[in-house]
């Protein structure tokens, strides 16, 4: 390895200097001159959107990959040498899904050569710690997302490590399980252990003792997360009391030079300003300081969010609101054998609004979503999209909706242009109409240079754009979004929601499922699904105030609200065995 072995500071268990790693065929290096130190006794956060280089860095630390340039020291030696004292929890493939919880633990104990006489004590300690003791004989593949991550953590801990590498333990896990995982890792922290926690969730970053913020392979920030948050202090404000629609206000505000970033939070609009005095003396709204967040600092480092007016929405047709609602669910129920995945779900979404389906993994929100877009046939009840009943005129209902899935689900082997042409044709656009539609989205989403590129090799932000472009080619009156922005960087997410907000102003109705509490804030109405039932519905502000009463919270965030409501629902059924049981079903 080139360069000298870096000498870590006192108490550091791992240390890298000026790492560079290139992958064949990639536009940019995965890591470009990154330095990092993992001290003991605290949680070091490795933060960044998907594709930032987090996994690459962790794999280098685990000795699974060699860097092109730079130096690495783990526990005072080369990486991969002293694996006995390194616990590593990979993002995927960490568990053997066809083995039971106990067999997984046994296997890891064998691999780590844990002496037989220590095993029983270690296992019962870990199972108690992760609350998995009841599930010893269950197959790992049958566990819920949150429980899998806990088991992964337990497996990484069979032999007490000095360095614990956690690659996105919170990914695909609902907010409650994420909080539990975080609390577990906090409990582990001792003077002898250093933890690296990687995450794409910026709110997790705030809780770390120190963070390294990566974006496209570059280190944007390192240090105490509060430092980044403080840099935007006084410049984050909340606007309330305006007459106009909140989305209009946000759009106008974002178009101003002095506004760096803005989001919707319930009835109010939250802004990041260039100078604290930007809005001084203006009328038409009330202005109050707001709590600065780590994400605000990140967005400023990335050069600010996109401007407010969506070119897509500008060019979009005006949706004529029909008589009925845009989306309607009436008593939707779906059973798989004995198991009821969704029970009696009803709501309606008017044109020009966003409706959110929220809930933990496996609670029934995906089932509901799939029934409404025609992927699953309801056992009972009915649904309609743009006035077309899903049973009797499914084809017309499907023609009226645009669909964007959580994971990039366009044709990765096809070029950008081939993807767009296909979706134009699939949605019934022909000849000139198809050509115009493709040209329009190509221009709006700036895909012109990349039309010939293979879709699968695009950078994440462009994939996101392409997916949205394909969904709106035929200018549908209804959009279905399934966790549309999980894992993308906040600027891309802002850009996405800027377009959605613009479309909604044109009359489009949007149904969105999400884990991201920030996305929930954009919704006009939300329904929370838990254990296959709707446990709460209302506007984000209504739900927050309900949660404030329920759990005696002062100004709860959307995530607090989510957790409070689920805990309240569990409290109503005390005779049952906690939520973990249902989560696993």
């Amino acid at each position, binding site marked *: 390895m080139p360069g000298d072995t870096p000498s870590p500071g006192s108490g550091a268990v791992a240390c890298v200097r000026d790492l560079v790693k290139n992958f064949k065929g990639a536009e940019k290096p995965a890591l470009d001159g990154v330095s990092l130190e993992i001290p003991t006794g605290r949680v070091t956060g490795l933060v960044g959107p998907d594709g930032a280089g987090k996994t690459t860095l962790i794999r280098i630390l685990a000795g699974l990959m060699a860097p092109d340039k730079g130096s690495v020291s783990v526990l005072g030696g080369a990486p991969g040498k002293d694996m006995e004292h390194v616990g590593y929890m990979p993002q995927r493939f960490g568990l053997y899904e066809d083995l039971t919880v106990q067999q997984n633990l046994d296997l890891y104990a064998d691999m780590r050569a844990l002496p037989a006489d220590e095993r029983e004590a270690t296992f019962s300690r870990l199972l108690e710690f992760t609350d998995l003791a009841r599930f010893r004989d269950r197959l790992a593949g049958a566990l819920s997302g949150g429980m899998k991550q806990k088991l992964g953590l337990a497996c990484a801990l069979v032999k007490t490590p000095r360095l614990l590498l956690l690659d996105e333990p919170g990914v695909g896990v609902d907010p409650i399980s994420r909080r539990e995982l975080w609390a577990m890792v906090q409990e582990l922290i001792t003077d002898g252990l250093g933890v690296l926690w990687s995450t794409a969730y910026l709110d997790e970053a705030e809780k770390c003792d120190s963070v390294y913020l990566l974006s496209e392979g570059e280190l944007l920030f390192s240090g105490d997360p509060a430092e980044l948050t403080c840099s935007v202090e006084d410049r984050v404000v909340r606007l309330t009391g305006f007459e106009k629609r909140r989305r209009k206000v946000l759009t106008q505000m974002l178009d101003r030079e002095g506004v760096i970033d803005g989001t919707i939070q319930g009835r109010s609009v939250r802004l990041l300003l260039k100078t604290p005095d930007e809005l001084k003396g203006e009328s038409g709204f009330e202005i109050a300081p707001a709590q600065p967040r780590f994400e605000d600092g990140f967005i400023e480092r990335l050069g600010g969010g996109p401007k407010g007016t969506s070119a897509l929405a500008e060019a979009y047709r005006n949706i004529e609101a029909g008589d009925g609602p845009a989306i309607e669910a009436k008593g939707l129920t779906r059973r798989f054998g004995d198991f009821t995945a969704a029970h009696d779900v009803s709501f309606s979404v008017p044109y020009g609004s966003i409706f959110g389906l929220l809930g933990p993994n496996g609670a029934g929100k995906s089932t509901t979503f799939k029934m409404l*877009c*025609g*992927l*699953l*046939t309801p056992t009972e009840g009915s649904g309609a999209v743009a006035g077309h009943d899903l049973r009797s005129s499914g*084809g*017309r209902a*499907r*023609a009226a*909706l645009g*669909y964007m*899935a959580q*994971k*990039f*689900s*366009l*044709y*990765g*082997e*096809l*070029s950008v242009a*081939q993807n767009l*042409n*296909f*979706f*134009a*044709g*699939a*949605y*019934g*656009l*022909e*000849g000139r109409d*198809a050509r115009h539609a493709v040209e329009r989205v190509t221009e709006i989403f700036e895909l012109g240079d990349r039309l010939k590129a*293979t879709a699968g090799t695009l950078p994440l932000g462009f994939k996101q754009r392409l997916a949205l472009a394909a969904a709106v080619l035929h200018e549908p009156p209804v959009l*279905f979004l399934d966790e549309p922005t999980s894992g993308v960087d906040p600027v891309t997410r802002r850009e996405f929601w800027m377009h959605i907000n613009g479309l909604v102003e044109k009359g489009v109705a949007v149904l969105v499922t999400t884990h991201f509490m920030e996305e929930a804030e954009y919704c006009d109405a939300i329904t929370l699904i838990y254990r296959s039932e709707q446990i709460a519905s209302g506007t984000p502000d209504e739900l927050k105030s309900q949660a404030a009463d329920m759990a005696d919270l002062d100004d709860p965030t959307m995530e607090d609200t989510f957790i409070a409501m689920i805990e309240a629902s569990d409290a109503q059924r005390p005779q049952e065995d906690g939520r973990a049981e249902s989560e696993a079903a």
Partner: protein
Amino acid sequence: MSGALKAMIVKEFWELLRDPKARITLVLPPLIQLLIFSFAVTLQVENVAIGVLDRSSGTASTELIQRIAGAETFDEVRRLGSAEELRRAIDRQEVLAALVIEQDFDSRIARDETATVGVVLDGRRSNAAQIVGGYLTRIAADTGLELRPASTPPPQNAIAINWFNPNLEYIWFNMPSLLVVIVSVSCLSVTAQTVAREREMGTFDQLMVSPLTVPQILIGKMVPPFFVGLFNGSVYLVVAPLVFGVPFTGSIPWFYVGLTIYLVSLVGLGMFVSALSTTQQQAFLGSFVATIPVILLSGFASPLENMPDWLRAITYINPARYFMEISIGQFLKAMPAADMLPLLWPLVVIGFVTIAVSGWLFRARME
């Protein structure tokens, strides 16, 4: 054709041509099989070693042995000293067959009696042994005729004439059969991947929420493998006569009628495998599992007449069985249209059933 269907077909072609894995399944198997089957698989018996245990050592026996040594088939005639030596030579596979000439062979011929020759064949290589046995009988009969021209003709004086393939050229039989094998393998493997790939890549839901109907999706997915099969079949139709000298005696339009209907039933079968599989790996294994019986029960490797009744009954649902007959018939027998019809309607039925079932499965597997 509706624009949506056209878009679907174009997309499927692009996917087939842009995916490097799919491209390999397109080109490699037909090429490799053309090489292997046309040069390595031979049903002719050549370069055989034969043993002779001559206990008579007279003029007649010497004459017989010389004639055998002169035949092209046998490149080595090994003299064996004893029955024990004979047993060992067969056992070690040093010789495929051994001739036993008894002591009274010459004296019987001299007395104008019927003389017999014993033949020991290695049953472990039954096919080759049977053919060698046939050669030896003929040589022995010829020799007998010449040694005793005055005597009455031997009871078996039939002269075999092989119709349609007078010289029993194995390649005349192999090429039309190989055409069926290649068409089947390439078409099945391409079809089997199509739906499974979409499921694995996560694009399947995207497709199902579009206004495309299930028949449109199915047809769109079936067209490219259909053309892959058509292309491979056409290549063989050209290569077999031009490169390997196999005569094509039938009608080219009727050949294509047969090929088209066969491909439809085959694509239906592939679609069935594809709709059943959730991952590409399953689809790969599935197409393997489907391909083997399709080929083995087609009459290519072993004659259908030799199969037990229950197995022969199964071959009636194997589309390759019918097309095998069509292909060989069109190449070698100038098969008339009237003979085609009884072979075509089962293919139509098979295609109809498999496509209907896979269409149903296609939807049912989502729920």
